[in-house]
Structure formats: C-alpha cells, structure tokens
C-alpha cells in the first residue's frame, strides 16, 4: 500500500488543478497548498487504523444488502416515455442552435 506523502508541493497543486480543469490565480495557489496540507495532515490520522482485512464500503445500501441489484424492485421497465421538453433544456444552454450545444474550437494547434 502506498504511503501518505509528507506534504503537497505547489507543483502538485498545479497538477491536480489541471486534472480538475480548475485555473488557480497566483494568490490562490499557495493558499490552497496550505489548506490541503492542513487537511491532509488531519486525514493522515486514518493510518492509525489497521484496515488490512476490512472491506471497503462504497455506499450503505450495498453494505446492508438493500442494493437494487439484489431485488430488482427499483428497476423500471425499459419503455419509451415522455422526457423533459428539448426546447426547455436548450433554452438553458449558454450557446445553442436549438438542437446542439455550441462550444469554442475543440482541436487546439
């Protein structure tokens, strides 16, 4: 199992921001690094626990055997039914021709 690293560097924060499609200003960057390190320091307390034989829990229904997969009761028949009105949906788009969402240039060279 990989160990919790001692601290997050500015470069790592930059890298994570990149992964998350977030832009951080020069003022935000050191502040976020400071906050992340404080929080991760607290999270490191989890390492006091031996969890070698403990199964991970993704969500509670599964852990209790209430998952829809075991009963099938929460699955509805796969039939065509009315959906949300497309014009109402497209009216919320920042840029649209009424049928498609328009975005700036995708391929960058």
């Amino acid at each position, binding site marked *: *199992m*990989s160990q*919790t690293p001692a601290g*997050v560097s500015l470069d*790592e924060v930059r890298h*994570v*921001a990149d*992964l*998350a*499609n*977030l*832009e*951080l*200003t020069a003022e*935000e960057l050191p502040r*976020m690094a400071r*906050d*992340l390190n*404080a*929080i*991760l320091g*607290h*999270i*490191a*307390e*989890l*390492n006091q*626990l031996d*969890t070698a034989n*403990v*199964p*991970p*829990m*993704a*969500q*509670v*229904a599964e*852990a*209790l055997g*209430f998952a*829809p997969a075991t*009963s099938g*009761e*929460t*699955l*509805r028949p796969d039939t065509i039914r009315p959906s*949300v*009105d497309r014009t109402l*949906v497209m*009216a*919320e*788009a*920042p*840029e649209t021709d009424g049928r498609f*969402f328009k*975005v*700036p*240039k*995708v391929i*960058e060279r």
Partner: protein
Amino acid sequence: MSETLNLETLSIPAARTAVAEGRVTAAALAEQHYDRIAAVDPEIHSYLALSRERALKQAIKIDTAAKAGDTLGPLAGIAIGIKDVLAMQGAPATAGSLILKGYHPPYDATCVAKLEAAGAILLGKLNCDEFAMGSSNENSAYGPVKNPRALDRVPGGSSGGSAASVAAGLCVASLGTDTGGSIRQPAAFCGVVGVLPTYGRISRYGLIAFASSLDRVGPFTRSVADAATMLEVLSGPDTLDATASTQPTASYTTEAAKPVSGLRIGVPEEYFGEGLNPEIRAAIEKSLDDLRAAGCTIHKVSLPHTKYAVPTYYVIATAEASSNLSRMDGVRFGHRSEDSKTLSSMYRQSRDEGFGAEVKRRILLGTYVLSAGYYDAYYRKAQQVRTLLTRDFLTAFAQVDAIVCPVTPTPAFKLGEKTDDPLQMYLEDIYSVAASLAGICGMSVPCGTTQAGLPIGVQILAKHFDESTMLRVGSAIESAQLSR
C-alpha cells in the same frame, strides 16, 4: 374575511385546518408569508428567489377544492420553502453558486412534486452554502444567511436558509439536504427540528449532487409532529431514482405519537468528550433525565471509531464532489466564461469564475485523493474506515433502540469566526458526519438554550429505516421540553 395567524408558531395541522374550514384562504396565507418575508428577510437573507406565481396558482387550486368540500391533501395550504439545490420548475436553482446563476431547471425534483401534490404552497428557493459545502452558510455566493435567534451569528450550514426561514416564521416547513450534517447542525443552531432520513428513504431525483453516497433530502419544521407529516409525504421509492429504497414506509405521524416507555437509549461516550460546550452537555443530560422519567432505560454505548469520522468524510465527500461537479463546465447550462477561444480554456475559465474558494478547495482535495498513486492511501482507506464506522452503529443498535447525543460541540458561532481556517470549520461536523457515513437516520430536536439565549439541539439517531423510533424519542424530548 381572513383570520390572521401567528406565522412564527404556526403548525401544519393548525394551518391546514384553518384553510379547510375556510377561516383563512390558502392564497391569503401565502400572501401573509410573502408580507412577512418582505418585512423580515432583508435582514436574515434566507430566500434567494420567490416563486409567487406558482405559489398563488396552487393556493387558488387548494381554495377551490376547500370550498367544494373536496378531500384535501395532508399539506393543503402549507407554505414551504425549498433549498436552492433542488430543482423546481419555473424558479432558478443556483445551489448558492455563481456557476449556476440564472439556471432554471426544466423539471421538478420528485420531493418538490410530492409536496405540491400533497397540497403544499411552494414559496420560493432558500439560500445555502455553495453546492451545499459548508457549516455556516458563509459560502453562499449570494451572501450569508443570519441566524434569526441572534443576528450576529451564523445559522449553520449548509441548509442555513432552510433552518432560518422556519425559525423566523417565513414558511411553515422547508426542505434541506444533509451530506455531513447540513440539516441537523443548522436545525440545532436555529432552534428548529431537522430530520436526516435514512439513506434512500426520500428520492433525490432533481437534487444537484454533491456526494452521491451521502446526500439526503429532509425536512425542517417547528415540531416533531410536523416533521413526521413531512416524512410521510416525502418517503418512498421513485422510478426516477434507483437509490430511493423500496423498504416499507410507516405512518410516521402515528408512530411519533407512541409512548417511549421501555425503549433502550444509548449514550455514546465518544460524543461527550473534551471540546463539548458545558451548557450543551447539561441540556442533553436533562433530556436524558426526561427520557428516563418517561420510562426509557439509559445505557452507555461505544462508537470507538468516532474520531476518524471527520477525516473519512472529507476524503469520501470531496472525492465524490470532484466527480459530480465536473458537469459544471459551461456547456449545457449555467455560466460560460465570455472570452475563451478554445474548449479547454472555456472549461477552465468558466469554472474559475463560477466556483467559490471552498468549492475549489474541495474539488482539489477530491481530485488529489483519487489521483494516481494516492487512491489506495486515501480513498480506499477511507472506504474501509467507513465500514468500521458503520459497524460501530450496527453493534450499538444491537443493544439499544436509539442513540442520544449532541449535534454540535458548540452553539451557533459568530459570522466570520471560522472562515479563515477550513480545518476548524470541518471539525464543527464532528458529531454529525458518522451518521452520514453509516447511512442511518437522525434528527435534531431543540432541547434548551444557553444563558446567552442561543438554541441547543439534541441529536437522536436510530438504525436504518427506523424513523419511527427516532421520531418517538424526538417527540418525548420535545414534550418534556415544552412542559418545563
């Protein structure tokens, strides 16, 4: 001719009966609420938007039905506010964020539709921390909510507007959401009842997701009986939400009124350690005495992993949030940055301009704990500890019927007091996040005030889908409190 009702104390049955008997029209009652909002809310700031047209249309429908002598729904004429993370057609849904400024969802959340089908009048959308991330409502992009019981204090978060509006008589009940304490903590801070139903008890279709394995919808009310009525309307499966459980519901109003004699109440020592405000400790001990007097037996229980709940929560919740919030990208709805030349810069700039500091912080943390090389050390580890925290409760509930403990370590703190230190703010959730991770039900019930007059809440926890026992204990604490 219309009777004027006291909106600060109005209960669901009192309002419904007045409407049914024609002593006041639903339309007049809605207008009385809007008048009070206009007079009081500029200072409290609990509402972000009013949905007057929809409310009055529904009120006229109720009044016509009442006049015709038709059977009225359980919430007929009841004025209700909706947290702004829930979709309500015709009203904006900002989630307290600039990135969704101006967004009008083209459909209703299931819980919103259920309330209206039961006769409720939906007054508008309630302020909250941005994407429900916060414990003080100071993370709303539209300005904080103030605590109606003490205007220099926070109302709690993230459902601060939902708690404050009920406390201030700006609606009879409201909907909030709870991911790590966001219903129970503001209920405690504002002196109202707040219910965290079992995970899966209420449909989340139409809820803007924060952390999907934790998010729950629940009611705020001024009494336990009103909360039971709301739960009865809201609970049950939903073909639009596969996580809404098919576990049987109960007649919660009947269950809430049953005596508590013979119930075994657990008191977890881990929730009464250092850091707990002495006035809160004393108020909860008094409630335990009340339960003893009502015939309950009190037992010490242990929830040994409690101290790991906050770090576990902030790994799991932020990981899920980083994934859920990736949909906020300026393509299909919400804010798009104006001057981006390419798609990738459009994503980045839209998110940079649209998200506040706390949301960015949590997205970064969540992305970090999921990123290559750290997944096992953080995310998988937290999921394993989540199993241990859940086992703690299952073991305790083999010995007792309900657990009674504090909601928060301190009463409502001052605006600005904790904004500079995110970790301090997170530690505010110490008594609420374990129940969130375990998926059990819980509620906050007022149980006194501090010498300075700040409300104190007591938390009642019960096992999965046992809202009935939780409400019974809540009622017993409430009635003992009222008869003092």
